[in-house]
């Protein structure tokens, strides 16, 4: 049995050690928003040149899978996806953590990630050559419809407030088109600033839109960041395993979806997570709980995104087409090792390939103990840190993360500005998630749409290209289903009002969910904020229209269509609000200190814009200490402050060294350091 030999080869102490070290390192890097698997893999590739190819691959694959998993920690504990793959984890993971189920959410994410990772790796082991055909069957129209499918999640995310959700999506789509268009090469919506040529980085936007509001709200109240149950039960592994077992169909469906989407070179973990989340929500009897802390939401996203790791290796190894950026770097490492990629790889280099796949399987299993330990530690630190340290630490991590993406201060500033805008919009009922979905899916949708148009136009078969291909029809059907389902579910719930959903009731007993504020949402008011914002968005739409005059049709058709849509929707919003038919957002929490929040935003802004002058380290140290004082609601003795100042210096120094010495990022040359 040859395969057994490869398995034993993967079990050598060196390979086991590399798998464990890779998973631990990857998990930590993935948990820090902005530090990505791509970065870690890119830095570590040279070390693998001296290793045997299989060992090097195992180390890189372990880092990759660990990083995708680690993204869940930040998503659950601070509402910020550590990697774009865990965007949908925030939807339910953070509400779970807020109500005291953070430990449970982390354990569930771990179990789901391990299952998803195993399914993906097993598919790679057993079915790689036939599955690779999937990558080829997806053409531009399929990518376009896949992105549209992802966008239908907006309807589900903004039930009761669909108009604002759609406007948010239009804003996100417009943001995604800033910069040089891939198709057509036109420069759009940059405001003539060269810094925006490369567009708005998705990761820095994610950090800003999700994390800055958390920081601003954290400082405003005395309440703890996350609720801690009096009887904190640790990992709650048994409970989590029980939930996962009851959701086994969700786990399997999400893992398979993740594997298949991972095979598509243009898609990746973020789309896999979003699509699986949409499907899990549609199929669940408790779909109304999604977005409010439903364990199945975390399970679906995390199973799917780890399944993309194994899935992504399928086209990489079989066709030489990397599924994701980390795959591309690993492909380069293979070429340097002198290994010829291609269909013959599984026979000519069977030893290397199968040892690697077994190594990936072992690394995935090792995620369970490693992840539970790291997750437990991260959870404990988050709940035991005093606010005066937690607020500046999270703020500092947003700065570090958004800087690290391109070693560029511009990304940090974009992160902060988008974050403040996102916070303001959120107060008026515009949630960040539709904006993020638009931003993540916009490029894929636009490229697919224009490429389909070019091909369809050339062959005189436009309608057939868009609507006539079998896979496209399947995706369109799924999209329609998920688009209409929330309305159907609402209608059904109204009809069956008298009969309580027994499953939902039983579930609610074991995991109390905050009741939806249905009473408040139903009140129609003359909403002044919506009138003002609606008019601003109409103006934004016209600016976008004016900016895209005179560029090629390839580069302008999509942004112009979105701008027109934005103008129409925003005008409708303003008119409805004026007519007294607006939906007021939930009022801000009582006892919130607007003054502290404002001060924090000012300090954060000064910090971010002082980086080019003072240097990243110096600006961060000053900002950190200033935020420490703003975030403290009690008076503390000078000993406490001294201890905190030392912690501040240590945290800043540690990350400064990590970035400049280990990741070798170019630090901005300021006055100091």
């Amino acid at each position, binding site marked *: 049995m040859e395969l057994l030999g490869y398995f034993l080869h993967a079990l050598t102490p060196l390979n086991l050690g590399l798998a464990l070290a890779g998973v631990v390192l990857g998990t930590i890097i993935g948990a820090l928003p902005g530090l990505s698997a*791509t970065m870690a893999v*890119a*830095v570590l*590739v*040279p070390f693998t040149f001296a290793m045997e190819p299989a060992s090097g691959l195992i180390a890189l694959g372990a880092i990759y899978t660990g990083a995708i998993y680690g993204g869940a920690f930040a998503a659950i504990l601070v509402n910020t996806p550590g990697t774009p793959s865990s965007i949908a984890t925030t939807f339910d993971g953070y509400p779970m953590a807020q109500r005291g189920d953070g430990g449970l959410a982390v354990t569930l994410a771990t179990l789901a990630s391990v299952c998803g990772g195993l399914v993906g790796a097993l598919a790679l082991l057993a079915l790689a050559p036939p599955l690779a055909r999937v990558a080829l069957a*997806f*053409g*531009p129209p399929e990518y376009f419809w896949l992105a549209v499918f992802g966008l239908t999640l907006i309807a589900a995310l903004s039930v009761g407030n669909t108009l604002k959700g759609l406007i948010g999506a239009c804003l996100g789509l417009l943001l995604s088109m800033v*910069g*040089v268009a*891939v*198709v*057509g*090469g036109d420069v759009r919506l*940059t405001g003539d600033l*060269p810094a925006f*040529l490369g*567009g708005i980085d998705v990761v820095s936007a994610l950090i800003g839109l999700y994390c800055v509001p958390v920081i601003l709200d954290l400082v405003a109240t005395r309440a703890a960041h996350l609720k801690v149950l009096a009887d904190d039960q640790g990992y709650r592994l048994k409970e989590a395993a029980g939930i996962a077992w009851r959701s086994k169909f969700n786990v399997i469906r999400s893992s398979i979806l993740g594997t298949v989407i991972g095979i598509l*070179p243009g898609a990746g973990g973020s789309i896999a997570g979003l699509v699986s989340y949409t499907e899990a929500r549609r199929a669940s009897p408790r779909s109304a709980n999604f977005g409010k802390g439903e364990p199945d939401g975390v399970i679906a996203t995390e199973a799917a995104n780890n399944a993309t790791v194994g899935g992504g290796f399928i086209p990489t190894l079989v*066709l*030489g*087409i*990397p599924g994701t*950026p980390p*795959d*591309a*770097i690993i*492909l*380069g*490492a293979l070429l*340097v090792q002198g290994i010829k990629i*291609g*269909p013959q790889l599984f026979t000519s280099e069977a030893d290397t390939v199968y040892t690697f796949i077994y190594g990936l399987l072992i690394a995935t299993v090792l995620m369970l103990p490693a992840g539970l330990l790291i997750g437990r530690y991260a959870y404990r630190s988050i709940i035991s840190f005093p606010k005066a340290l937690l607020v500046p630490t999270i703020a500092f991590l947003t700065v570090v993360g958004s800087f690290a993406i*391109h*070693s*560029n201060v511009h990304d940090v500033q974009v992160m902060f500005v988008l974050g403040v805008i996102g916070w303001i919009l959120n107060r008026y009922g515009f949630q960040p998630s539709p904006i993020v979905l638009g931003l993540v899916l916009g490029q894929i949708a636009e*490229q697919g749409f224009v*490429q389909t148009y*070019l*091909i369809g136009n*050339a*062959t005189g078969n436009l309608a057939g290209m868009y609507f006539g291909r079998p896979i496209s029809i399947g995706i369109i059907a799924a999209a329609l289903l998920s688009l209409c389902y929330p309305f159907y579910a609402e209608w059904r719930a109204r009809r069956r009002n008298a009969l309580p959903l027994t499953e939902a009731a039983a579930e609610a007993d074991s995991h109390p969910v905050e009741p939806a504020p249905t009473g408040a949402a139903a009140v129609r008011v003359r909403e002044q904020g919506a009138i003002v914002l609606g008019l601003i968005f109409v103006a934004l739409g016209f600016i976008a229209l004016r900016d895209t005059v005179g560029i090629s049709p*390839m580069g302008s058709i999509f942004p112009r269509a979105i701008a027109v849509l934005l103008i129409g929707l925003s005008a409708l919003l303003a008119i409805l609000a004026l007519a007294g038919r607006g939906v007021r957002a939930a009022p801000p929490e009582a006892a919130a200190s607007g003054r502290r929040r404002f001060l924090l935003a000012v300090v954060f802004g000064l910090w971010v814009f002082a980086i080019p002058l003072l240097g990243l*380290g*110096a600006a961060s*140290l000053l900002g950190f*200490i200033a935020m420490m004082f703003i975030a403290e609601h009690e008076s503390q003795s000078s000993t406490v*402050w*001294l201890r905190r*100042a*030392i912690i501040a*210096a240590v945290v800043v120094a540690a990350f400064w*060294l990590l970035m*400049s010495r280990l990741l*070798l*990022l170019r*630090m901005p*040359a300021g006055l*100091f*350091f």
Partner: protein
Amino acid sequence: MKIRTTFFATAALALLAAMPAAAQSAEEFPTKAMTYILPFDAGGESDIAARFQQSVWNKHTGQDVIIQYQPGAGGAQAWSQLNDIAGDGYTVMGINLPHTILQPLEGNAGYQTDELTPVHYFHYTPNAIFVPSDSEFETLDQLVEYATANPGLVTLAGSGSKSANNLGQMQFDQAAGITTTYVPFSGTGPSITAVLGNQTVGGFNYATSAMAQGDALRMLAVASEERMPAFPDVPTFKELGYDIVGGAYRGIAVPASTPEDIRQRISDIVSEINADPDFISKMEEGGFVLTDIPYEEMPEFVAQMKEEYTAGAKALGIGD
């Protein structure tokens, strides 16, 4: 009071750690690891060539090199920031032709061609036209014949708009008197995928693009002066009667503030690696054509390329 002392002590310590190493002579360069920024995503030709260089970098310099990716705007994002980087020689950036000529011609690129400082162009990948192996087209003539009869019906996938691939496709259209439809993709990987999956009739890519695909793709012609050693059976466009020679050059650039002797030293390092037998065999197997255009020949080379590409681009309506 105590807080302040702590703060200043920490600040002073960190300042010390961050002090740049004292200026040093070019002969000793480099004395620490270097950073090599690629203005593209991982996995493309620039990345693979740089990884090949990286694998022998330490052997020739005694120091490692770290590769980082800064994709955006077809490279313009990184190139427009090149001169903001400290010119100590420890940070270098990949640079490509014709990208760095065509982008500023279009305006709005954030840099001018002459503001960049290439110190060495070390290899070249000619354009090539591909079809999937199950395609009905066995030769370029068959494809041209079909395209003549069916204007616009031949769709060709390529990497980016107004790129080397796009320029090559336009030149081909002009030389053969045909109309093909160019479909831009976000990189070599996605465009090759489209060709493999029969989403387009063929692809206008680099000769290196199909190295990993083995028999799945058929290269109909290559836009080099002579047949390439890696593909002895593939005719050149010139042989077939179309006067098209083109592709992309890749090299290494430094910030404008880098001193002359360091520029020269980096150019020498790249030349030395270009002569490494290990490196040569990997590159040639991969379908790359090694060129050796060192720093002293750079002004002449860039001027000549600028003239060629500007004329070519003007004729095709780029940069109006």
